């Protein structure tokens, strides 16, 4: 086991444990908070995969943006003074069971598929300029579409959230 493998397991734990808490914790606020750890762990995984720019973007967008928004929504959509965010105990058995079955199949497929791995040991680092080049050449149309999507979301959110 190399140091990188150790880091993988650490980050996997950082990702999965909070994800578990997020799904099963009765308090919705705690669930949201635990997402913080999960997002951070995923960012670490990205770093291990040589995607430093993606990792920083993950932190910036998920932690700095999405998570804050989610917490905002949690606080705005409940009676915030005194009330406990108890999510009613609900039968989680059926979804859990089905999820486990699905997971079993997924793992089975992953382990049995003969992956055509062509790992190149080139230095992974300067990805930023190459990503930028790709975005403005091969992926120009998706890039433009993404910007239109963001604009539409922006306008839509403003119209939805505006008080009448």
């Amino acid at each position, binding site marked *: 086991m190399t140091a990188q493998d150790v880091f993988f397991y650490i980050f996997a734990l950082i990702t999965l444990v909070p994800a578990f808490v997020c799904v099963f914790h009765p308090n919705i606020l705690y669930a949201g908070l635990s997402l913080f750890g999960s997002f951070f762990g995923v960012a670490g995984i990205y770093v291990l995969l040589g995607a430093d720019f993606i990792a920083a973007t993950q932190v910036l967008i998920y932690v700095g943006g999405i998570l804050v928004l989610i917490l905002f929504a949690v606080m705005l959509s409940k009676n915030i003074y005194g009330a406990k965010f108890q999510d009613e105990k609900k039968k989680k058995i*059926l*979804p859990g069971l*089905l*999820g486990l*079955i*699905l997971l079993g*199949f997924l793992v089975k497929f992953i382990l049995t598929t003969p992956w055509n791995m062509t790992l190149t040991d080139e230095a992974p680092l300067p990805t930023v300029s190459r990503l930028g080049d790709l975005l403005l050449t091969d992926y120009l149309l998706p890039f433009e579409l993404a910007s239109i999507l963001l604009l539409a979301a922006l306008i839509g959110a403003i119209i939805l959230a505006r008080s009448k």
Partner: protein
Amino acid sequence: MLESLFLKFLPSLDPMTSAMVMLLGMPLLGFVIQIFIGKRLFRGGDWVSVGTIFVSFALSVLLFIDLLSSGPQFQWTTSWTWIDLPHFQLTMGILVDPVTILMLLVITTVSFLVFLYSIGYMHEDPRYSRYFAYLSFFSFSMIGLVLADNLFALYIFWELVGLASYLLISFWFEKPEAAEAGKKAFIVTRIGDVGMFIGILIIFFETNGLLHFDSIFSYVAKGQFGGEFLGISLLTLAGICIFLGAVGKSAQFPLHIWLPDAMEGPTPVSALIHAATMVAAGVYLVTRMFPFFTPEARTVIAYTGSFTAIFAATMALTHNDIKKVLAYSTISQLGIMMMGLGVGAYVAGFFHLVTHAAFKACLFLCAGSVIHALHTQDMREMGGIRKKMPITFTTMGVATLALSGIPFFSGFVSKDLILGESLSFAMENPSHFLIPLFGFLSTGLTAFYMFRLIFMTFYGEPRDSKKFDHAHESPWVMTLPLIILSLCSLAIFFTGSPLGLGELSLWGEKSQWVKYLLEPPSSSEHPTSAHLYALILSLTMAGCGILFAYLIYYKQTLSSEKIAEKFKCIYKTLTHLYWIDELYEWAVIHNLLRLNTLLAHFDNRVIDQVLVDGWAPITISTSTNSGDFDNRAIDQMLVDGTGKVVRASGKEVRKIQTGKIQQYLLVGLGAVCGILILLTLV
């Protein structure tokens, strides 16, 4: 010089392209700024327009200096694809050659001076900034017109120029005459433009999609342009159609009627658009397309031009509106240019365009200055303001002498060239003797009516003392353009020799820069043996004209009323402008209306009542029967039956839909798991 300048400041772009785009774009920038935020700018934003046009002017001058040093072979062109279709490509491009550069120089110089002049002339106008926006727009369109390297681009700018002209003629749209005049100008020129468009289409289809000037010419030169229509070769027909556009824009007979009315616009506009640049676009077009015209087409051009020259000159004789006299004079001079081009005097025709632009702009601006001072356009209310407006008087005198073709002045040089060539043309083809005859007669008439104008305006006793007392010299922004333009009306400016004659010149070959820079196309070589006769004849004619004007309007030894009385018939014809407007009114509009009434009757009686109404009973009986069938068979059995089935089944199926999204998803997930299990089991 220009290239190195641009290379230094905009290193990443092609210097010539960026220079041309800047030259074209600056007025457009001025237009955009003025039309959107002009009102809020300091001084109504006039400095924006003047500044932008000054940049264009400076670039043109630099370009001209470059051209002088590189000689007449200079040509630069670039183009890019605009519309890319499988079978043909439409390109847009820029063509810069000596003709273009000379036109650019004329356009930007006159534009700049007129912009400057307008600051003084229009300063009280409530729509000051919009006026400058329109002017900028015009300059943009005009520059685009001369930069275009193919017929289609030229046509686009040709129409834009027409639009600018319309907007500016009817600038004071509160006056019904101005609004009418704008519409008239727009519609009448459109008639010519339709002809031009047909010409372009003929060329387009005959040459399989060639629109570039050079490629058209080489196509024609190879003799591939065949085809006949009703016994006329298509080449001639296309040439005449193209020329029709020029007839409309340059106000040649019979489409000249819009130009005098266009004088309803502000006077600087008349100077810029209706004297110096836009109306010269027709001449430019003929010059540009010169190798394209067959001898037959050229003869048509020459006759049209010469007839227009004499025709318009006679109409100018009796008018009392100072601007209309100048307008008719413009038509007449444009006719002279057309005549010159028609007889093959390529250089002379274009030369006259350049000189005419300077002195006619000067005349209009002087007239504007007089109008500004006296607040009237009627010459009968003027008189004796020579002493009060010395600068205006001097400059206008210089320009008048230039227009009359007096030695030492620029008009003499260019007009004499044209007349000489037309004379030698007639000597070769004696059957065409009318062309030079009209030309010389119009020279004499020109001298007469111009001096009539000078004498009535500046000499004699003031006829309206109240207006006379208010008269004053105009501010410097108005007089400075006058002075510059009148300096440009001196022969020495164009030839290097003060007299404007002979080979004597101060700075060698290049001092006759217009002649030096223009290379006549090979098909128009003419011996110029007739120049001396032409010189003597034209000077005699001009002298006679001036003498008569002097006797009638200064000495008043001959009474104008008596002459009018004596030739009452002719006088009346002239004051009514040959009843051309009335003729059009009667022939075109009246008959058209009658035809329309007839057609409306036909429509009403035959088509509506017989054809349309006749269908009704048939339709009604058919639809009653089909309605019955529809009702019984289709509605009650098929449609209602389907509905009942659907409703019954829907009642049962509805129970599945709980509205709980998680339940749906759960079912979906369960289905996925089920399928997976099934797949592994099988």
